[in-house]
């Protein structure tokens, strides 16, 4: 066979057919792991769903006139959310006068006093209103209740889908699963797309129903009226959750505006709790019961007030729902594009067979920025838990489990910081410039590599340039996506130890005729790279990798 060292195409393609299956023990372990996700999610989904259904039922109940007999804010200091509405009203059903004290079907407790006082203000004693009567049993409510709580069902639904998907993944896939045409293997990415949409939904819900209203509240508070107030009570509320204990300040204060007296316990625009006990305790200590202070009151709705106006650090949390939306959109769009992908054959017209300056796969600056991002992201998250653990030690709680649990995460974080430092030093390395002739290699043909170094080439002890071919196989194991690499070829092009040869030179060699061309599908790749390696004493070595195209050999 005579080879044509001129031209020929190579292929880029996609598609996904089967998964490699883990062993039986792995499958059972995976099932157990994802089963916990699934059941926990299902349980919470059930509780939320039941509440939504109970609320929805009240919409089918007939409404009848009612007269409010009493209404007030009830405070139960021992509760995490201490405030609720207490109401009594009279109504007539089937000719009989009845009295009910149910504001809505399920008792709703609030952490925010003004939310409750607004509801109480809407139903003053003597007020004629309407109530909703359960036709099947003696039960009446003044208000339907909130349906938006149903949006929170999306959160456990994520767990349900992860759990179900993970369990399915443990027992499905594999070569024996092939059904239908082999060449249809690229179909069926709907699950990932729906999963992405769910992420978008959760992020959007948090953004719209929590972040934006509180942000607007905080911005609006800049124009609210500064008003003297009296602190009635001040306490630190411990909020227990799976992640440990967090703390929230609950300061109830009284103020007057235009002759009317109001109460509020809103400290700042973003409600919620945080892990720093001492910081929250300091706030509580600052507002002693009976002391005088100032609050900021919304003139058009005087029941709304805050002690601290403006946006706090919580405003930065807005990045979290945005990240959810971004990740979700990314998953959705990538799933869509892969579904619609069509085979593409890159022919000679797509290739540049002239001389070509090669581009590095990853520049040192990109590598450095990437490492900074990874280190900041990792250590940023871990630092929250470190702070939590440190706070626990300061409080004398001795959180041994959390501390030991954090050790590997802290070590990984330290490793990332070292990598940042290493990649920072690498920025000062000389930059290789490599020219390849022809720009696309062909098996069985010769090629020439010309190189030069920008920067202090004299620091290099030696220089090695070689062509490397490697396989890259990407696969999923549970929820992880892993890539294995294997180098099958490493052809030496040049080795230099003389400073002049290191700084600049060229070399020619033949590419064996039986090497494979480059190949890049979604999960499997044969990649060719030109690698430049230089030894530098007491400094990170020079190591650059340049992408090289190898076309299929064409017989003539």
């Amino acid at each position, binding site marked *: 066979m005579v080879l044509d060292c001129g031209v020929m195409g190579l292929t880029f393609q996609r598609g996904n057919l089967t998964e490699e299956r883990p062993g039986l023990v792995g499958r059972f372990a995976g099932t157990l792991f994802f089963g916990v996700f699934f059941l926990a999610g299902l349980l919470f989904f059930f509780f939320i769903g039941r509440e939504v259904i109970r609320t929805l039922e009240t919409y089918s109940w007939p409404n009848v006139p009612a007269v409010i007999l009493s209404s007030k804010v009830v405070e139960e200091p021992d509760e995490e959310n201490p405030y609720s509405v207490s109401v009594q009203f009279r109504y007539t059903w089937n000719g009989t006068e009845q009295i009910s004290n149910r504001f809505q079907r399920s008792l709703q407790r609030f952490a925010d006093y003004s939310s409750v006082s607004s509801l109480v203000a809407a139903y003053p004693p003597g007020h004629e209103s309407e109530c909703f009567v359960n036709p099947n049993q003696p039960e009446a409510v003044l208000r339907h209740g909130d349906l938006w709580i149903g949006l929170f069902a999306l959160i456990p639904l994520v767990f349900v889908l992860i759990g179900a998907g993970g369990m399915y993944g443990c027992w499905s896939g594999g070569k024996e699963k092939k059904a239908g045409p082999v060449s249809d293997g690229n179909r069926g990415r709907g699950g990932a797309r729906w999963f992405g949409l769910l992420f978008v939904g959760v992020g959007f819900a948090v953004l719209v129903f929590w972040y934006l209203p509180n942000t607007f509240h905080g911005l609006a508070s800049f124009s609210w009226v500064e008003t003297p107030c009296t602190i009635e009570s001040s306490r630190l509320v411990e909020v227990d959750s799976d992640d440990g204990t967090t703390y929230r300040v609950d300061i109830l204060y009284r103020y007057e505006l235009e002759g009317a007296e109001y109460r509020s316990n809103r400290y700042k625009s973003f409600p919620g709790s945080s892990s720093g006990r001492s910081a929250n305790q300091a706030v509580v200590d600052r507002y002693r019961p009976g002391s005088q202070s100032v609050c900021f009151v919304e003139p058009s709705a005087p029941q709304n007030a805050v002690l601290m106006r403006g946006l706090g650090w919580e405003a930065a949390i807005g990045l979290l729902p945005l990240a959810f939306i971004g990740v979700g959109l990314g998953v959705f769009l990538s799933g869509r594009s892969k579904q619609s992908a069509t085979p593409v054959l890159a022919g000679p017209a797509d290739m540049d067979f002239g001389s070509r300056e090669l581009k590095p796969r990853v520049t040192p600056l990109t590598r450095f920025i990437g490492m900074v991002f990874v280190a900041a992201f990792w250590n940023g998250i871990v630092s929250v838990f470190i702070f939590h653990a440190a706070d626990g030690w300061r409080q004398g709680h001795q959180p041994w489990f959390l501390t030991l649990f954090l050790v590997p995460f802290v070590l990984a974080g330290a490793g990332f910081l070292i990598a940042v430092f290493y990649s920072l030093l690498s920025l000062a390395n000389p930059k290789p410039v490599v020219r390849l002739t022809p720009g696309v290699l062909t098996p069985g043909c010769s090629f020439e590599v010309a190189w030069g170094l920008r920067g202090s080439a004299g620091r290099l002890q030696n220089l090695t340039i070689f062509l490397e071919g490697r396989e890259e196989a990407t696969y999923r194991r549970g929820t992880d996506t892993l890539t294995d690499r294997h180098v099958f070829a490493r052809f030496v092009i040049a080795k230099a130890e003389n400073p002049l040869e290191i700084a600049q030179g060229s070399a020619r060699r033949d590419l064996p005729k039986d090497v494979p061309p480059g190949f890049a599908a979604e999960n*499997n790749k044969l990649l060719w790279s030109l690698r430049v390696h230089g030894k530098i004493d007491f400094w990170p070595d020079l190591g650059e990798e340049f992408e090289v195209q190898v076309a*299929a050999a064409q017989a003539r």
Partner: protein
Amino acid sequence: MNATITLPKTDFAAGETISGVVSWHGSQDVRTAEVRLFWQTQGKGSNDVGVAAVETLDLPGPSGQREFSFVAPPAPPSFSGQLISLVWGVELVLDPGGSASQNIVIAPGGKEILLNHPEWLEMDDPSPTKGLQSS
């Protein structure tokens, strides 16, 4: 449905004609029938599949026999490595009725490219953390 693909040979070089005969026999009336030239990856990575060419058969019916032919594309060639293998195939897809496929080789000289050539590894990796890492 009984479907078969008959090929006079299974090893091809790029540019050669891949021709053969497909036949099917069954009780169901086949609405659509296609012969596809495709490749798929096998091995450690999640499988990738690509269809290079499709020949749609007219008026298939419950049973039939047709000739087909494709030109073997230049790339990707059939290859086999430590992690990945790429296999070409011809497939008959009947709807309803299922499918049948036959593996072939498309590579220079009609021989699958093998990646395990020790002589190709002329040197060790000077920075081992770069070349063989998993992520």
